[in-house]
């Protein structure tokens, strides 16, 4: 069945002009996903929801982005213990999402890999945090869990376990490198160490206050997550934020992108042993943070996006000041870019390291910034008619080499472009209210918010079954799609290049582990 027919069949998705919710049976579930994949669509997220004392008892949903619209497939699951057909063969990125669904809800897929993903030893295999009416009691003394890593056999092959505790102060993740000499044969990741029960915690919060937790899911994407939550909530309520709020949200999002790109560009220089880059970019980032503090009253915009609008305004003078600062920032970054580009040592480290060719990127569903460095053009700011970007025509920053150098180049291009976008938004800030009044929504089908954060599309799916309460809030970071691709990116590289390649992706731990 053609995709067009499916779009026609789909019910409207609350709050989205280009979106649909399609109820599918077990057979159509995989077929529809395959259709989407065939027409170049991507999997944004996959999550499970339990409906205790209802029929059906559970549902698995997959959010897909195709033809500039958001299609949510909903598969009713009568019995969570009976495996449903997984989407991992259509979208390889779905494999880990399905394992996480099993860990949190007990809904099983038919995938061969049934190893736990988010569950380590903190709770038992027959307990599910989202299923229990009260919080799952943590196992007092977690036993060392015996996670079967895939072994690589051969002459001279040995394993190097790295993490979860690292020599530097970074987030926890375990990397099992199978190497021969200095060459990496295989990398296997183990994540979930930063799991803190965010999705469970959401269900205990009033729906109008969930944005505060959403902003704290992953500190580097606070605006993206808070905006995605508010977008979903406003969709449920049928409300829209006033124009001034929408413009300011765009400014926040571009500032967040700038903050992260500046930090990453410095850190990438440092990881290549070029500490000059770190100190220069740290200075620029700090200057930006201070300007933001001066204008919006917060260094990082954790509490700027609120349901119905925004909480941090900028008067004309402050907006002009910030725009001027962004102009200076763009010029300073151009000068540093010339240094990075001309430095033989830095170029030698960046070029050819961690290559993901466009074909592989397409098959594995590499998304966001890393995807754009590997020839995957998706950028929601451009592909969906999403205010305020519909009036801005953002430039697509695309590279095809797929190596560290390409990811650095995309970051440089996006810094330039984000400065331009933020200045354009600041120069045309509409007047009017900052916030539309919002009442708790009626119970109903879920609404979805999707925001192109700095790393890629951030998704929040929100569902209410009792007025004012959250039944299920699924927050999804694009790291879910990109972590598995990193495993491929390092194959054939040398061990000491792994940290540089890892940094060039800079994927989330906290936002992924929830």
């Amino acid at each position, binding site marked *: 069945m053609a995709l067009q027919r499916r779009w026609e069949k789909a019910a409207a998705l609350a709050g989205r002009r280009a979106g649909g919710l399609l109820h599918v049976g077990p057979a159509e579930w995989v077929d529809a996903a395959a259709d989407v994949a065939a027409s170049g669509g991507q999997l944004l997220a996959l999550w499970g929801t339990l409906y205790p004392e209802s029929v059906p008892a559970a549902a698995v949903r997959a959010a897909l982005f195709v033809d500039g619209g958001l299609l949510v497939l909903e598969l009713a699951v009568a019995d969570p213990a009976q495996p449903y057909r997984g989407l991992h063969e259509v979208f390889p990125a779905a494999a880990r999402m399905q394992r996480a669904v099993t860990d949190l809800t007990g809904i099983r897929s038919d995938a061969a890999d049934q190893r736990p993903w988010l569950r380590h030893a903190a709770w038992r295999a027959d307990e599910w945090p989202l299923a229990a009416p009260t919080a799952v009691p943590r196992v007092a003394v977690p036993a060392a869990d015996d996670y079967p890593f895939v072994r690589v056999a051969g002459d001279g092959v040995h394993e190097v376990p790295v993490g979860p505790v690292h020599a*530097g102060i970074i987030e926890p993740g375990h990397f099992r490198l199978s190497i021969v000499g200095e060459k990496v044969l295989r990398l296997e990741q183990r994540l979930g160490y930063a799991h803190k029960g965010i999705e469970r915690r959401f269900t205990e919060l009033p729906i109008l206050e969930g944005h505060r937790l959403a902003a704290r899911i992953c500190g580097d994407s606070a605006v993206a997550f808070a905006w995605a939550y508010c977008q979903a909530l406003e969709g449920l309520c049928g409300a829209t934020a006033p124009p001034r709020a929408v413009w300011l949200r765009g400014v926040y999002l571009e500032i967040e992108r700038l903050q992260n790109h500046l930090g990453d560009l410095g850190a990438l220089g440092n990881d290549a042993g070029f500490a000059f880059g770190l100190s220069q970019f740290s200075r620029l980032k700090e200057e930006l943070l201070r300007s933001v503090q001066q204008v919006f009253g917060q260094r990082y915009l954790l509490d700027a996006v609120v349901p119905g609008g925004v909480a941090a305004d900028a008067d004309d003078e402050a907006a002009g000041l910030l725009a001027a600062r962004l102009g200076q920032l763009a010029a300073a970054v151009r000068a540093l870019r010339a240094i990075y580009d001309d430095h033989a*040592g830095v170029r030698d480290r960046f070029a050819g390291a961690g290559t993901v060719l466009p074909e592989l990127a397409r098959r594995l569903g590499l998304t966001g910034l890393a995807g754009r460095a590997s020839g995957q053009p998706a950028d929601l700011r451009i592909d969906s008619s999403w205010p305020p970007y519909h009036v801005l025509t953002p430039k697509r920053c695309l590279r095809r080499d797929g190596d560290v150098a390409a990811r650095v180049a995309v970051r440089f291009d996006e810094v330039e472009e984000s400065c331009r976008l933020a200045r354009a938004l600041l120069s045309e800030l509409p007047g009017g209210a900052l916030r539309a009044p919002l009442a708790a929504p009626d119970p109903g089908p879920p609404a979805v918010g999707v925001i192109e954060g700095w790393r890629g599309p951030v998704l929040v799916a929100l569902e209410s079954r009792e007025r004012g309460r959250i039944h299920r809030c699924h927050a999804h970071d694009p790291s879910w799609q990109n972590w598995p691709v990193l495993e491929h990116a390092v194959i054939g590289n040398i061990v000491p290049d792994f940290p540089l390649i890892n940094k060039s992706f800079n994927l989330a731990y906290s936002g992924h582990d929830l």
Partner: protein
Amino acid sequence: MTSLGAATQLLEMICAAIAAPAFLGWVNQCRAWLQNRSAPSLLQPYYGLSKLFRKDAVLAESASPLFRVAPYVVFGAMVVAAAIIPSMGTGLPLSMAADGIALVGLLATARVFLSLAAMDVGTAFGTLGARREMMVGFLAEPALLMVLFVAAMISKTTSLPLIAEGLATRSIGLYPSLAFTAVAFLLVLLAENARIPVDNPATHLELTMIHEAMLLEYSARHLALMEWGSALKLLNYACIGFALFVPWGTSTEAAGPAGLLLAVPLLVLKLGFAGVGLALIETLSAKLRVFRAPEFLATAFLLAVLGLLVHLLLGT
């Protein structure tokens, strides 16, 4: 052995051990300034060492006595090396017992113990570091020997103090052979002391480390000795460089105690310049891919060989 000789000898060993952390502190300070950072105090390495000496040592369960002995061997080797390098005076009684080739052997001993200790505990990082250290070492050693040979051929002796004395008292002129070997020596110094571009002493990324990876399992006094040892190694290399390429100002036996008094401020001055130069190199370059290190050291070896050929062909 004259009393002046004995005094010079003792002074050199003690001064080297005391001054080494300050030299490292100076390099770090220069580097911070060049990177627009506010610099740590010159005494920071001393604070670090005194902190480590006051801590309780933790040893891995699988550590053998070798692991515990290694820091003392490494540190001891560096102190003895300092004794045979004519940094202040050339009248060194001990250097009669050991020449330049023995010095290279002494440095190699330290490396062997360090690498064995790194592999002793059996962690992946220690082994990775030891392996890379040996790769750098086996390429750097011939280059260093070649550098010493050129100087030895010019002065017709392998004893370092005599080389320094011979070079210092020659008429001032351009020696192309020494120019080649000086560049070669600089490359060896960077590689052997785990500086950028071969290794990054400031990194926290365990997978990219060479020298630091071997020290990951050490703590407290053992770590302090290892770090002090590496500071001393850097100072020793700088002093070898001075002895071979800028030997002027080192006091000779004939100059008496006055010469020694003059030699100390001159050495401090030379170290000051060397520190700035080192920091400059480290700031301007990025770290090489590990597999570029052999090319880097092959260049050093090649330059040293060129120096030798120039000497043989031109007789300068």
